[in-house]
């Protein structure tokens, strides 16, 4: 008798609690995303990271290089804003790695893994929160850039394109950094290594200064790596220049990276211990 009761009760619970599918994955991602946003809004470092850093960098680079770039006939504010945008997104993604490593360290991740929620929800929730943060950053950075003289030359679609491409980049960067956090786990270690990808990809790109200004032996790297293409595509969007080539390169790079990072991150999530 009791055996039947138990079986029936178990079956009932499995039925009500254990749905699968994409709808569930999205719903769970939003719940976790909301939680991440509450966390972010309570971290003072995040507030300065979002509000202050991008503006400080924009101002500093402009002051330092505007004149010398003018000698190369470059209107530096138009040239600089795209890479400052990408840099802000890079910092956003670095912070996501620290927060995820924190969740691994405190056992939050294990708790989620023992609950009947979608496998993709923890990463989905991370992404949602950091995309919101990215949008807030853009909403502050772009108006300030406007005050400094930055202009979109060709209308509202280029603004939308600029924002979408930036968010695509953020998605890839957050996924990549999630991978780093899942692989290294220890918050101190993650914290000390998040800066490592920054140097080659941001500084050794044609984002701050044209590729011709780099030593010859470095130029092949500078021109092929993804950040250079994305910065070029963003500049083309802002300036109303020919867009197709840099955009295709950017989308190709971002798609490949997202596939690789995303697949590996979910794989690591499933077997992390």
């Amino acid at each position: 008798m009791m055996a039947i009761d138990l079986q029936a009760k178990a079956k009932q619970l499995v039925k009500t609690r254990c749905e699968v599918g994409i709808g569930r994955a999205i719903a769970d991602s939003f719940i976790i995303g909301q939680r991440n946003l509450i966390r972010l809004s309570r971290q003072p470092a995040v507030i300065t990271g979002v509000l202050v850093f991008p503006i400080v960098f924009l101002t500093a680079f402009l002051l330092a290089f505007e004149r010398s770039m003018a000698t190369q006939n470059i209107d530096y504010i138009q040239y600089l804003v795209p890479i400052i945008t990408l840099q802000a997104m890079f910092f956003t993604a670095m912070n996501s790695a620290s927060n995820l490593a924190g969740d691994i360290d405190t056992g939050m991740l294990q708790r989620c893994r023992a609950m009947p929620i979608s496998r993709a929800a923890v990463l989905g929730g991370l992404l949602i929160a950091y995309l919101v943060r990215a949008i807030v950053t853009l909403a502050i950075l772009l108006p300030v850039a406007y005050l400094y003289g930055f202009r979109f030359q060709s209308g509202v679609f280029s603004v939308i394109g600029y924002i979408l491409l930036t968010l695509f980049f953020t998605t890839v960067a957050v996924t990549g950094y999630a991978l780093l956090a899942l692989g290294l786990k220890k918050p101190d270690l993650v914290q000390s290594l998040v800066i490592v990808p920054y140097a080659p990809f941001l500084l050794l790109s044609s984002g701050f200064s044209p590729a011709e200004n780099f030593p010859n032996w470095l130029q092949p790297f500078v021109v092929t790596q993804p950040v250079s293409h994305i910065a070029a595509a963003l500049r083309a969007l802002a300036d109303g220049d020919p867009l197709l080539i840099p955009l295709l390169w950017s989308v190709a790079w971002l798609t490949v990276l997202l596939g690789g990072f995303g697949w590996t991150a979910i794989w690591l999530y499933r077997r992390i211990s």
Partner: protein
Amino acid sequence: MDVMVEARGLEKCFGRTRALQGIDLSVPAGSVLGVLGPNGAGKTTTINCLTTLLKPDKGYATIAGYDVIKQPAAVRSLIGVTGQFAAVDEELTARENLVLFGRLLRLSATEATKRATELLGQFELLEAGNRRVKEFSGGMRRRLDLAASIVAEPLVLFLDEPTTGLDPRSRRQLWDMVVALKERGITIFLTTQYLEEADELADRIVVIDRGTVIAEGTSDDLKNRVGGTFCKLELADPKDESKVRRALSGLGDITGTGTLTLAAPDGVTTLSEVVRRVDAIGVTLADISLCRPSLDDVFFALTGHTTGETT
């Protein structure tokens, strides 16, 4: 009786460490199993295998008949897990934590809020409910962690060393809460390093060491194997030892040197008999006490080594 949790031949290696070397156990529905073992025995690894967090290398396990390896999603909807280290969000308030887990477990926003309030009351956290968890004491954290594991009432609750590091009052408080959950019919799988805790909460106890089950039974069974309560006397002058041994002959086996130990089945009566006899021969004692067996004593009796020694 129905079996709620069953494990057969679980094995797990981490590199060269053989964390589990064939764990067999079963927990009848509605009962509490205490898994007793020292550091590194494999308690957490066992829980991780049973809760789908870790895939065993060999063997199988089921929860209410669902296979933990082949049907992990089903198993996750039947269990609640309180890990060894309180896993709640430090930046959130206690209430926000409970609402979060409620929503993830399919409660609507209003239901989750209602359930959170109910649990805060039940776990004596109502006053602290709107404070951030990072301001909480260890005991409060543990209680919140426990509450978070039962937001949606599970069939089986896994508790990994729920009171390690708590002061006696918090420990007692947590025990009461575990007893209340048991009375609601939840099957509980509890690990601990304290015989006392297993004794207090568990219907049956499994002792594990180096990844294998070395003993199993009720706490009385175990205590009988260890010899139950014993009496410990420390002599002021070790030279008196043989004299004392002679005086106490007939009271049972005496072990040890310097500090003598003998079984005290009658508790205080045995103790006072010892004191009387030692007094009668005019020997001074530095100390005398009545001890209940600890995990160390159980271990010594079962394996011949103490919990500290490995290999």
